[in-house]
């Protein structure tokens, strides 16, 4: 049914910045769900008489990083404006925001769709502002908590380039990933630290003019974003098909009923009476400031993915999983950098994606609390490479490393796990096995050459898995061939 209509979607994303203190005062930033209400407040963020804002430079640093990461043109002349509106959770009766002169303009973000195609989404603007307090409605009144009031907030506004729920989700996930990479936001949508609001409209295919847009709120997961957007597209299409019209409004997403519902009509556009905040002189971001932010900018996930694919020969999947989290990616990068004569990036990737992740899962460890260092994994794989231990033993050693944090060589030594590559020792074991198993020997010689694996298994059992499989294979083959004579 969306054959007839083209969806036009733009996303507004509000991200709280994880600074120590708030945007315009010295109050600490607390977890708005856990902290006692109104315990992280001061006269400034309560909007008391005569109080004045002072810009938190750290918040500007963070905003600058995001603007650069989203390929925006950074504006040197930053002006804070007052956005005037009434709501009981808005302490001053106006919100300090940026209006005509935001920190970032005209950026873009490339997203990868499920069919592998890359799509570029325009970023219209990135601007700094302050968060509001939070209202709780009770049966006998409303309570307001100002802990969140004045927390630095970044608003990222996309161009209306998004065409489906899936694209909206891919875009939002990328944004969240970048914010987390930059360590400026935890990405916790449940706690409202990251809030995503799509503006959704449809228009007949080929039409120039935009349709009437609906703003969607209360989306506290990416799934809700995708489903809510798709629901809304369908709803609008059905409305138009039945001769109705879309009204401009804010709609909420009902997660349980999986549908949108009308919250507030926006037929009368709110007049925010923006004007430059006279309490804050223009904030000038000079070249040196931009340059220092550029230097602080880490390699971003897309660049990492591309490098993993193109330089290391990893699959799209492997590359994206390794690059998903900055700490994991940096762990992997450190291992690759320290690999020396050891394992290839591909081998390291396999070990991380399979064994390390499995062990982390089992032990409830995150990459930040991992007792195994990248160098230790490289050392472990070096032991495999040198033939000191085999893969199976290496897995055991890794498990032990996870528990004790000891280095692999000391584990191998103390537990006597070093691989047996000594031909004389292995030959005597092989001789015994061949002498004791005339049946299988006869079958092997009779043409069932896949029995070789069974013989390898016997040697492994005998050596408790410590035999060097390459050496065993070679010795067994020669020895069995000799039986033929």
């Amino acid at each position, binding site marked *: 049914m969306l054959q007839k209509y083209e969806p036009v979607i733009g996303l507004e994303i509000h991200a709280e910045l994880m600074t120590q203190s708030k945007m315009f005062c010295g109050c600490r930033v607390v977890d708005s769900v856990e902290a006692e209400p109104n315990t992280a407040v001061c*006269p400034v963020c*309560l*909007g*008391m*008489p*005569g*109080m*004045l*804002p*002072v*810009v938190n430079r750290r918040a500007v640093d963070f905003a600058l990083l995001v603007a650069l990461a989203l390929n925006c043109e950074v504006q040197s002349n930053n002006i804070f404006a*007052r956005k*005037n509106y*009434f709501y*009981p959770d808005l*302490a*001053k*009766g*106006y919100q300090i925001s940026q209006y005509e002169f935001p920190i970032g303009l005209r950026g873009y973000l490339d997203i990868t769709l499920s069919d592998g195609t890359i799509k570029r989404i325009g970023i219209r603007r990135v601007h700094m502002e302050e968060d509001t307090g939070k209202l709780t409605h009770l049966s006998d009144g*409303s309570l*307001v908590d*100002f802990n969140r009031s004045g927390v630095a907030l970044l608003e990222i506004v996309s161009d209306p380039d998004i065409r489906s729920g899936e694209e909206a989700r891919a875009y939002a996930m990328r944004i969240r990933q970048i914010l987390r990479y930059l360590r400026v936001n935890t990405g916790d949508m449940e706690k409202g630290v990251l809030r995503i609001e799509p503006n959704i409209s449809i228009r007949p295919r080929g039409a120039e003019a935009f349709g009437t847009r609906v703003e969607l709120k209360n989306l506290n997961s990416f799934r809700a974003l995708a489903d809510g957007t798709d629901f809304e597209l369908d709803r609008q299409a059905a409305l138009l098909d039945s001769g109705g019209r879309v009204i401009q409004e804010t709609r909420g997403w009902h997660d349980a009923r999986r549908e949108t519902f009308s919250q507030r009509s926006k037929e009368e*556009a709110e*007049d925010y*009476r*923006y*004007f430059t*905040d*006279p*309490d*804050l*002189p223009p904030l000038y971001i000079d070249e040196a400031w931009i340059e220092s932010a550029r230097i602080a900018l880490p390699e971003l996930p897309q660049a990492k993915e591309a490098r993993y694919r193109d330089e290391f020969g990893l699959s799209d999947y492997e590359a994206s999983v390794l690059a998903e989290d900055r700490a994991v990616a940096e762990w992997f990068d450190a291992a690759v950098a320290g690999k020396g004569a050891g394992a290839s990036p591909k081998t390291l990737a396999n070990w991380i994606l399979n064994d390390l992740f499995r062990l982390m899962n089992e032990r409830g460890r995150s990459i930040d609390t991992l007792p195994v260092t990248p160098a230790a994994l490289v050392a472990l794989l070096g032991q495999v490479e040198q033939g000191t231990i085999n893969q199976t033993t290496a897995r055991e050693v890794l498990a032990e490393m996870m528990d004790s944090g000891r280095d692999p060589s000391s584990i191998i030594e103390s537990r006597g796990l070093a691989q047996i590559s000594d031909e004389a020792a292995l030959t005597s074991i092989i001789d015994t096995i061949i002498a004791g198993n005339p049946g299988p020997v006869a079958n092997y010689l009779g043409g069932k050459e896949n029995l070789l694996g069974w013989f390898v298994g016997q040697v492994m059992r005998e050596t408790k898995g410590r035999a060097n499989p390459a050496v065993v294979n070679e010795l067994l083959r020669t020895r069995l061939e000799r039986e033929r004579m």
Partner: protein
Amino acid sequence: MEPTISTLIELRDALRRGELTSVAATQAMLDRIVAIDNTIRSYLTVTDEMALEMAATADRRRAEGEDTPLLGVPVAVKDLLCLAGAPTTAGSKILENFISPYNAHAVDRLIEAGAVILGKTNTDEFAMGSSTESSAFFTTRNPWDTERVPGGSSGGSAAAVAAGLAYGALGTDTGGSVRQPASFCGLVGMRPTYGRISRWGVIAYASSLDQVGPMGQTAADTAALLSVIAGYDPRDSTSLDTPVPDYEAALTGDIRGLRVGVPHEFFIEGIDTEVEAAVRAAIEQIARLGAEIIEISIPHTRYGLPIYYLIASAEAGANLARYDGTRFGERVTGSDVIDTVERTRALFGPEVKRRIMLGSYALSAGYYDQYYGRALKARELIRENFRQAFETVDVIAAPTCPTTAFKIGERVDDPLTMYLNDMLTLPLNLSTGCGLSTPCGFDSKGLPIGLQLIGGPLQEATILNVAHAYEQTQPRRKPELALGDIA
């Protein structure tokens, strides 16, 4: 109390010489306030206990050999500046019971300098007015004629100093609110350069125009206060981080060779002839002291009034949005949140409501460009006028007000005439310089006339020195009620 002691400097010297204690001086002031302030009505709150404690502390510190610039000197503070632990009302019902938990920066500086805070003086509501008649509590009377207004909005501070109920006071000057009452009450009152004094803890009226200003009997008194309250404060982002000169030391009295500009636009039609004559005579006197008088032009003077009322009201509309009864101040409980806020805001007086409406309109969609946006551009023209003027002159001399103090009630129903009163003071606020009003004689009704001296940015020392030099040539006169006459 020694009747001869009437200036801040005289008192400070007497305290230093040990001729009297701060407690004695403070108690004398408090007694005087009890005796005559029911007539003058300059104080909204007298912080007598706090004052006597501060005075005792000052005496103790002095006994221990300490000395600070205002140690033991009793002063008053306009009720727009927060004083921790005391009511700060801004002259409004909406803050009637608000006890500030913090000091304004300027108040902190006074206290650090050893000053004794006698109390909080009356003001037009949120500093919106020129007479104290818009105060929600009462109208202050002019000590020179109690049938007349003391000017405003810092009328309480001016009346208190003029009546000898404080040795100096702080006011705020957004459009002339220090200079105009100083003119009406025969005092020196200064509007310093924007950013010279931190606005921290000063209840905002129009943030881009507000500035704290000192008032005193003399240029030296005013300079002493300014030296204490001026200086950088990181809590105010518009505060200037430049060194503070010794304003008292700058009072050499030598103004030879100084170029004094006289803008003909400031001698507007309708100006009181006695005012004009007195101001022109004062300028001649300044010439006799060796200054060069130059005729200049501030061509956009007449646009000052509309520009000011658009910008100040727009900012005020936003600044006053916080008084919703949610977090502090008065709350009039209604049926729901909106009703509560509406009932609470009904506590604002008519002048405040008028300016909020005007400001909201000037900023609203479709009108911004026509009003507020245009006012911002025109403000640049006025700035440019002053900048150009200061290329050829050091100081500008003009009347402070077109008239002397008017009668209480005379103009309350005519806001436009009331606004015209500020016509000659507010161009400076729209610009970037500093200015003061200093007494220059009396009209035939015996009411003081003010000479306005305007300097470029951070030229406070220069204009204070001109006022000081001129002052030395003039007889001192005190109102009938003045210090020593009643106590």
